[in-house]
C-alpha cells in the first residue's frame, strides 16, 4: 500500500475519533442538544477504516446503530452527520433517522438496523442484487457490519446459510467488542464460553471464518481484501471476526429521568470492576498505535500527524457549529416520507 493511502487511512481514523469525541462532549458542552441514543465507534476506527479501504467503485455496505464511522470514512459531510445526530433539518437524513440510522446510498451506504442483527438479511439481499448485476458488470461486493451480540440472532444464521448456499458476494464483518451492553461474550456465547473465537460460527455455514486484530488497520485491510476478492470472484462469503475494544460505554445514559444524559464509565469498570482490562485497552488504542507505526516506518512525521489532528479538530468544530446553527425541522414535516 502506498504512503498516501496509509496516510489517508490514518486521517480517517483520526477524523472518526475526533467526531466521536465531539458527540460525547456535546453532552457536557451543549446539554440537551442530543436527546436520544448515541453509540460511539471509538476503538473501532482501525477496523472500520481497514475494511472500507478495500472498497471498489460500486461496492456497498450496511451497518448497525453504531454507525458514525462508516459515512465519515466514505466522505459524507461530517456537518450533515452531526446535524442528523442533533436532530436538525440539515441532517444527513433530515432529522428522520438520528444517530442510529445514518444512510448515504450515493456513497454505497444503504443504511443500518437499530434492531440487533436484523440488518444482516438486508445486506445479504443487497448481495443477491449484486450477484445478479455481477453477471454483466464489473463485480461488486457488499460489506455487512454487525456486532458480536448479533451472531446469536436467528437472522445471522439464516443469512449466512443462505449466502453461503448461493455464493453471494458478501463479507460479513463482526466487530467483536466482547460486550453486549453489560453482558460479556463468554456469558452469552457458547463459543466464547468454550474459549473459541467467534469466527468458528462460519464452519456451521461452510464458509471461511477468520479472526483478525481489529486494532490493526492493515491486518483488517488484508483480511477483508482477501474475503472481498473471494466474493468478487464468485466464490461466496466470508465471516471476519474483527476484535475491537470499544473505548466508551455502550451508549449514552438514557434513563432514569431527571439525570442529564451523558456517557458513564465503560462496563468493564462500571459493571465488572475491571479497571485493568480497560486501561490495557487504552494502552492499545488503535489510533495512537497506528500513528506510532507510521512514524516509525517514516510514512508520517510528527508535524504531518499534528496537521492531520488539527485539521480534524477544525473540521469537527465546524460540524458542531453547523449542527448547532441548523434549524429544527418544521413540525408539519413529521409525517413526510412515510410512503415513497
Amino acid at each position, binding site marked *: 500500500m502506498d504512503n498516501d493511502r496509509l496516510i489517508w487511512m490514518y486521517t480517517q481514523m483520526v477524523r472518526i475519533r475526533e467526531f466521536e469525541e465531539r458527540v460525547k462532549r456535546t453532552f457536557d458542552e451543549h446539554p440537551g442538544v442530543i436527546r436520544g441514543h448515541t453509540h460511539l465507534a471509538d476503538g473501532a476506527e482501525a477496523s472500520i477504516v481497514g475494511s472500507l479501504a478495500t472498497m471498489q467503485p460500486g461496492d456497498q455496505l450496511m451497518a448497525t446503530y453504531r454507525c458514525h464511522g462508516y459515512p465519515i470514512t466514505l466522505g459524507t459531510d461530517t456537518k450533515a452527520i452531526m446535524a442528523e445526530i442533533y436532530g436538525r433539518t440539515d441532517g444527513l437524513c433530515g432529522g428522520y433517522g438520528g444517530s442510529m440510522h445514518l*444512510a448515504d446510498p450515493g456513497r454505497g451506504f444503504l443504511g443500518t*438496523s437499530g434492531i440487533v442483527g436484523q440488518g444482516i438479511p438486508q445486506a*445479504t439481499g443487497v*448481495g443477491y442484487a449484486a450477484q445478479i448485476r455481477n453477471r454483466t458488470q464489473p463485480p461488486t461486493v457488499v460489506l455487512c457490519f454487525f456486532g458480536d451480540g448479533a451472531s446469536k440472532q436467528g437472522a445471522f444464521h439464516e*443469512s449466512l446459510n443462505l449466502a453461503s448456499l448461493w455464493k453471494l458476494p458478501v463479507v460479513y464483518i463482526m466487530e467483536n467488542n466482547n460486550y453486549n451492553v453489560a453482558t460479556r461474550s463468554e456469558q452469552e456465547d457458547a463459543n466464547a464460553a468454550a474459549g473459541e473465537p467467534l469466527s468458528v460460527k462460519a464452519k456451521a455455514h461452510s464458509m471461511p471464518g477468520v479472526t483478525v486484530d481489529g486494532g490493526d488497520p492493515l491486518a483488517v485491510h488484508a483480511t477483508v481484501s482477501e474475503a472481498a476478492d473471494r466474493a468478487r470472484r464468485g466464490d461466496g462469503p466470508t465471516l471476519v471476526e474483527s476484535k475491537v475494544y470499544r473505548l466508551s460505554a455502550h451508549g449514552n445514559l438514557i434513563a432514569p429521568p431527571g439525570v442529564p444524559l451523558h456517557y458513564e464509565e465503560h462496563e468493564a469498570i462500571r459493571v465488572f470492576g475491571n479497571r485493568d482490562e480497560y486501561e490495557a485497552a487504552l494502552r492499545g488504542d488503535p489510533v495512537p498505535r497506528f500513528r506510532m507505526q507510521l512514524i516509525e516506518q517514516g510514512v508520517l512525521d510528527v508535524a504531518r500527524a499534528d496537521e492531520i489532528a488539527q485539521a480534524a479538530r477544525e473540521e469537527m468544530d465546524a460540524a458542531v457549529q453547523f449542527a448547532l446553527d441548523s434549524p429544527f425541522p418544521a413540525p408539519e414535516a413529521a409525517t413526510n416520507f412515510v410512503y*415513497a
Partner: protein
Amino acid sequence: MRTLSYVEAIRAALAQAMRADPRVIVLGEDVAEGGPYLATEGLAQEFGRERVRNTPISESAVCGVAVGAAQAGLRPVVEIMFIDFITLALDQLVNQAAKAHFMSGGQLSAPLVLRTQGGTGGRAAAQHSQSLEAWLTHVPGLKVAMPSCATDAAGLLLSAIADPGPVVVVENKALYYRREQVPNALEPIPLGVARRLREGRDVTIVATSRLVDGALEAAEQLAAEGVEAEVLDPRTLQPLDLEPLAQSVKRTGRAVVAHEAVRIGGFGAELAAQLQAAAFDYLEAPIHRVGAPFTPVPASAGLEDAYRPGANEIVRAARSALQWEGCEELGAVAAAGGGGW
C-alpha cells in the same frame, strides 16, 4: 374475457410483470417448483432459477433479502407461504422495509411485494388458517391489499409490483381455485380504490377478501326479505379509500363491516371508527362488525365451519342494524353475550 382461477390470475400477473421488467424477481420456499398452491408454477421454466429462487425455510432472512434486494434496485416479490408464518418475518417487514424510506429522509426505498395467503377453510388448524392483516395495517410505511376476486388479485399485484414502497398482498386460500371471468389483458388496479359490487339503499356492507362473497350472498338473502343491501370492497386496507364507503353509509344510514379475522382488534374496528367519524350524523344504528370469535382456528371440519364467519352472520348483523331501536337494544345485545355490533 377468459376464464382463470384466482391463483392462475396471480401467476399470469407475475409472469406479465417479469416479462416487462427484468428487475422483478420471485423469492420464496419452493417457488421454483410452483409452491403448494401452484401460484408460481412455470415461472422458473420461463425466467430461470436465478430470478425465481427457491429459498431455505428462513422467513426472516428471505424477507430481509427481499428488503435488501429492493433497496439495491431489484423488484422482489417474496412469498410467505402462510400469513401465519409472517411472525417470523415481521422484523424485516415492520422495522426494516416499512421504515427505510422514512428513516433515511427519503433517500432509501424498499419496493418489494410480500405475497401471502390467509383464511380458513383448509381444515388446517390454528397455525395455517389465520387472518392477521390488521397487524400490518397498523404499521405506517406498509401498504396492504386484500383481493377478493381473480381480476383484483392480478390487478392489485401488478400495482403492488410497480409501487415504490413495500406492499403486502394478502390472498385467500379459499378463493384460489374459484374460476372467474378475467379480462384478456391484465391491467394494474390502483391501490387505494374501493369497488362497489352491488347497489342498495337500505344497508351498506363493507367486506374484505372471502367475506365479499359472503356479503353478496347475504345481500341476496336480504333481497328476498325486501332489504336492498349495498356491497363494497375496499380492496386495499392501507391506503383505505374511505370516501365511497362513507358516501354509501350516508345514503343508507346503516353499516355492517365484515371480515374473516377475529372481530376483536380486527381491521373492521378501524373501518367502523373511520366510518362513524365520517358519517356520524347519518347513522341510524351502530356500525355492526362481523368477524370470527376470539378463538384460535380449530382443525376439525365441524368446529371450523362453526367458527368461520360468512353470509349468515352478515345477514344477522344487517337485520340487527335495520331493526335497531335505540340504546336499550345495546344492553340487550351485550346481555346476550353477543356484542356483535
